């Protein structure tokens, strides 16, 4: 029994964590990931939404790496004891709504905890409210 379990150890050590090539793509369900990372807003103002994303990221201590209005994509980095990198995209969802998606990585790991994304959108909600009412 012990010998069998000990033989199992190296196999687990190799296969338990994803292999190097598997990291290029990801194994999680695409739909689940999208749902977790996306929030829908009753607004069609892409410009103000992107400005709110910038305010949110700066509030959270990020420096903006790239920002593109046409593609509605912003990438930012926060340095602490860790490196937190987030990309936020804004898209038209339908005739009256926009969707905002954020995906984040902490050092070499994808953040896959829904609560973390909820926290981000909570701060963004406030920023969107402030931008709409133009309060600094």
């Amino acid at each position, binding site marked *: *029994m*012990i010998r069998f*379990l*000990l033989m*199992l*150890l190296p196999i*687990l*050590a190799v296969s*338990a*964590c994803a292999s190097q090539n598997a990291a290029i793509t990801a194994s999680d369900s695409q739909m689940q990931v999208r749902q977790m990372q996306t929030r829908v807003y009753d607004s069609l103002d892409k*410009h103000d939404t*992107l*400005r709110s994303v*910038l*305010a949110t990221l*700066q*509030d*959270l*201590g*990020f*420096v*903006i*790496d*790239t*920002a*593109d*209005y046409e593609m509605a994509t*912003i990438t*930012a*980095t*926060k*340095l*602490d*004891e860790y*490196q*937190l990198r987030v990309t936020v995209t804004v898209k038209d969802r339908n005739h009256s709504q926009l969707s905002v998606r954020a995906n*984040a990585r*902490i050092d070499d*790991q994808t*953040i*896959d*905890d829904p*609560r*973390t*994304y909820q*926290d*981000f959108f*909570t*701060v963004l909600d406030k920023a969107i409210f402030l931008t709409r009412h*133009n309060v*600094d």
Partner: protein
Amino acid sequence: MRKPGVLLALLAILGLLSSCSTTQPGYFNPTQASVGERKMQARIYVSVEEAEVMSAAVAVLQDMGYSIDEVEARLGVISASKRADATNRLEAFGTLTLDSMKCALTFLMACSGNHYGEIDDVQDIRLTMVSMPQNDGSVAVRITIQRRIYDKRGRLSEQSTITDADVYASLFAKLSKAVFLEEQGI
């Protein structure tokens, strides 16, 4: 006697499995310090166009030796970076002296003093200026700054967000001057 062995092997397998999953704390929770930081990092410029503020900001960054990495005028974003010296001369002198003394003490033996390699050497500074037009016609500007410090061996010794109010005050002083110069067309 076999039971503890089996238990240990099972524990080892459990350990391996659990090492791949991590608990993630609230990275996007604004801290209590956020409000204070916002005040320190932001200024309002009155009776000036956003484009003028952005143009002045680029000029100020160039004055300070930064390279512009990203500009998105429609969103008021400017990001810039520079590599600069991070040597603290006093620290360098102290460490070098300590290493020399160690060498002298170890005499003909190999020098064990190698702390000189651990002192800070260079820093990569990155900053973002975001301008935001307000309803009353003024323009709010917010700056966030980060840096990575590397030691003389090229190893990362520190990475952080700059929270020193004097740094931001000094930057805004330069920006205010540049906005004035921009208005005067200088």
